[in-house]
């Protein structure tokens, strides 16, 4: 799992049947350096498409689950269907606040 | 499973229950071209008392949990994803 910011939406009509009803957001992962500073991430060199069941909006920070964890996320909210969801990234939390100091614990 | 060399140890007191009494060793993964060639280091749970500098075999994921408690169905919650599975006496 890692932190990212929602920067866009994806709409797709022609898709795998199990994906109907799922909303997809474009999420840009936060690097450790960006987590330390408060200003928004500048250039976007990496984006992940994640399934969203919590209703996150553009500009919000989210926690992304990846791989098996993403399918586990769907299991809870769409019981029994998770095994068939071809999804490898899902939003599992919409962040109210995060407080990160990359230098935490350094001997000063 | 991969071969490695025990290069260190980690001591913990505040820990999850599944770890009690077991040691955590640092194992440097050994590539084909010699000791610690790959630069990769893993934290492995040690139930075989492998001494420092010892050549060992390490197993991952469900294999590691089977080292601690065989039987895959009831050890999923065991917090361990890497364990020493053999103290290597010899290789050929």
């Amino acid at each position, binding site marked *: 799992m890692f932190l990212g910011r929602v920067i866009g939406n994806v709409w797709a009509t022609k898709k795998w049947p199990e994906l109907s009803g799922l909303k997809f957001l474009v999420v840009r992962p936060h690097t450790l350096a960006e987590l330390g500073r408060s200003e928004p991430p500048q250039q976007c060199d990496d984006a992940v498409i994640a399934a969203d069941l919590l209703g996150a909006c553009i500009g919000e920070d989210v926690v992304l689950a990846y791989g098996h964890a993403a399918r586990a996320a769907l299991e809870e909210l769409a019981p029994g269907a998770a095994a068939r969801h071809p999804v490898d990234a899902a939003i599992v939390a919409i962040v109210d606040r995060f407080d990160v100091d990359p230098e935490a614990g350094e001997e000063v | *499973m*991969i*071969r490695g060399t025990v290069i260190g140890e980690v001591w913990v007191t505040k820990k999850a229950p599944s770890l009690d009494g077991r040691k955590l060793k640092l194992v440097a993964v*050994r*590539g*084909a*071209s010699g000791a610690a*060639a*790959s630069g990769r280091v893993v934290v492995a749970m040690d*139930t*075989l*008392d*492998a001494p420092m500098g010892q*050549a060992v*075999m390490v*197993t*991952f*994921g*469900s*294999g*590691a949990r*089977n*080292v601690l408690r*065989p*039987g*895959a*169905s009831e050890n999923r919650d065991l917090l361990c994803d890497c*364990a020493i*599975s*053999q*103290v*290597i*006496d*010899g*290789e*050929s």
Partner: protein
Amino acid sequence: MYLAKVIGTNWGAKQAAGLEGLKLLQVRPVVLRASEAGATRLTEQDCALSDQVIVAADTLGAGPGEYVLVATGSRVRDVVYDSSRPIKAMVVAIVDSADIDVGVVR
């Protein structure tokens, strides 16, 4: 599954109980590299060996120098052995010959 070359074995008195009676083989995964222009068949020289060494359990009695097929994962282990074995890589075939389309590799 991947192709690999057997380079040896390792043994030890102190080991996990689930390893009882298992023969362990050290294998190096094969890495295909593009061969020179004009070559029509891949020869052994074109199959480089990764620096990584994997230890796989062997049921077929493969010896050093032989090329084998290695399968990994708990699903395969549960089928080939049983779910209490502390292993994740197994030799499931000894390769007689492999035919690889040179074009795809180049």
